[in-house]
């Protein structure tokens, strides 16, 4: 082995060559980062401004402005016989769907992650593609007829099942990444102690991937919460209608928005999901894994 001939880099003996500009650049990049983050904050907060002011304004207009403060709008909304109950209906549908989606997706994702199924990625992606058709308008007749044949018209269960079917592929897709990222030594360790697969699932896997379950749960809830078409087509009376459907009724005969009710209802309609998100993210963490492996 020989010592390589080496061209010694020109050595400068200035005390700190380029130190000042570098420091400046460093500061500039820091400032740049803050400016960027503030711009992002502004961009994401600005549209929400209206939601924060209009409900408290006596005469809400389309412009977000300092409100002439009043709570009358809330009182007016309370007079609407369906407003509050529709929120409860939404909770019912969202919770039902989320539980179903999270449970079934967790089981399926776990099985897919741990047992080699040939062509599972293709299968998952195929289902994902199909799920995108099913959320489209063109499927409403098949969905309706299906529900009719299964006697699921005017049944919340029907809505929950149909929504779950649509959400499951993506949920499995997301959860599988979480499962893949979980070290198997936890499970093996439990297995040596004699735990059955279901026990392992319950005691180890579920708690370990809880942030993933929480994420998928929130995602499912948000999806159901905003879904109009399926509950509208399948449910009959407004007693069962979720907030997404009732939101559409807050228009006048000619289709004009009643801004007072609409803004107030929008706020009430948004609050549960926002609160749920805050709760879930502080309690279970809210994050993603991901990346298609191999």
């Amino acid at each position: 082995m020989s010592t390589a001939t080496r061209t010694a880099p020109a050595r400068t003996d200035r005390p700190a060559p380029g130190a000042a500009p570098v420091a400046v650049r460093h500061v500039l990049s820091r400032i740049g980062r803050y400016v960027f983050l503030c711009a992002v904050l502004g961009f994401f907060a600005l549209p929400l401004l209206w939601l924060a002011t209009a409900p408290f304004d006596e005469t809400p207009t389309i412009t977000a402005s300092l409100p002439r403060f009043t709570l009358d709008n809330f009182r007016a909304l309370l007079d609407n016989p369906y407003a509050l109950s529709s929120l409860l209906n939404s909770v019912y549908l969202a919770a039902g769907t989320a539980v179903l989606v999270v449970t079934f997706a967790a089981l399926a994702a776990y099985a897919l992650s741990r047992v080699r199924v040939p062509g599972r990625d293709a299968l998952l992606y195929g289902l994902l593609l199909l799920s995108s058709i099913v959320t489209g308008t063109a499927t409403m007749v098949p969905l309706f007829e299906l529900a009719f044949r299964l006697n699921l018209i005017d049944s919340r269960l029907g809505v929950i099942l149909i929504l779950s079917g649509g959400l499951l592929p993506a949920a499995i897709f997301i959860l599988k990444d979480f499962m893949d990222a979980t070290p198997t030594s936890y499970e093996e360790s439990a297995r040596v102690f004699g735990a059955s697969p279901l026990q392992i699932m319950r005691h180890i896997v579920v708690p370990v991937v809880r942030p993933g379950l929480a994420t998928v749960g929130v995602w499912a809830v948000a999806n159901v919460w905003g879904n109009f078409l399926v509950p509208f087509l399948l449910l009959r009376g407004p007693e069962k209608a979720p907030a997404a459907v009732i939101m559409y009724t807050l228009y006048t005969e000619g289709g004009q928005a009643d801004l007072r009710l609409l803004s107030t209802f929008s706020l009430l309609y948004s609050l549960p999901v926002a609160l749920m998100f805050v709760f879930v993210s502080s309690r279970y963490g809210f994050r993603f894994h991901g990346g298609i492996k191999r």
Partner: protein
Amino acid sequence: MAPVTSPPDQAVKGRRRATGAAPDAAGLGRARATGFLVPGMVLILLFLVVPAAWTIYLGVTNYRLTGLAAANPEVVGLDNYTRALTDERFRSSLVLTLQFVLGSAVIGQAGLGFAIAYALRDRRGPLRRLVEGFVLLSWILPSSVVAFLWIALLDRDGGTLNALLGIPGTAWLLDHPMLSIIVFNTWRGTAFSMMLYAAALENVPRSHLETARLAGAGTWQQLRDVVFPRIRGHVLTNLLLISLWTFNDFAPFLITAGGPEQRSEILPVYVYKVALSGGELGFGAAISFVMLLINLVIALVYLRMLGRRKETA
């Protein structure tokens, strides 16, 4: 314990047995695994595959919701498809949709999401929580509410944006309808990309970035040489999902209703108009199926570009 400069699976002497390597750690066995799969798959089969197949069938009929064709739908073969492909409106709608996907998903959501995740990568504390909170809020709020917020923001006369910028009368939704819904959808969906990339960036070992820095690499070079190759899989997942979702996103309808003059009529809106307003369910179903095929093509393009580069690591 020593602060790990790289995630465990990176270490040469693997500390954690990573994924997939040892399948079936819990001793599921095929039978039980099948049992785990069944409930989900039954639901999917019944409420996803069946209606989807049905829809595909409708695509070859002239079925309508009302009128004579509702009473006696006829199989018309590929007529709907030839009609769609020769339809000027379909084609322009397709072009708009591709613009929409490219602009709001690939550039907007993925780009902004990555930028936010990158800017927040080593930051903890209130600023991060605040930014993430707002970004996520835009993601989970119901679309009907969100649409309203954006109409309020962009309105020509009373819009908050014009009021802030001091340019009343700028008709964003009319003069720049595509831009508006692209920005809107970026706002709406960035959260997903941000979270995915935040997770991805945690997988980029600090030592790799620092090696590049020591070699004198700037931010851009670090991104190109270290970060991107490392998060390729995440980029793929992200692009696949958000492109698919954006391609099928109906929310812009609530803001521009496809207008003015169909200048923001992306395919889901087109399908809505064809199927619901026009009642032509057969034709609408055919377009839906064409959309699925286009999604498939997009997915394959992504997979080709980003996936399948094996690293025997």
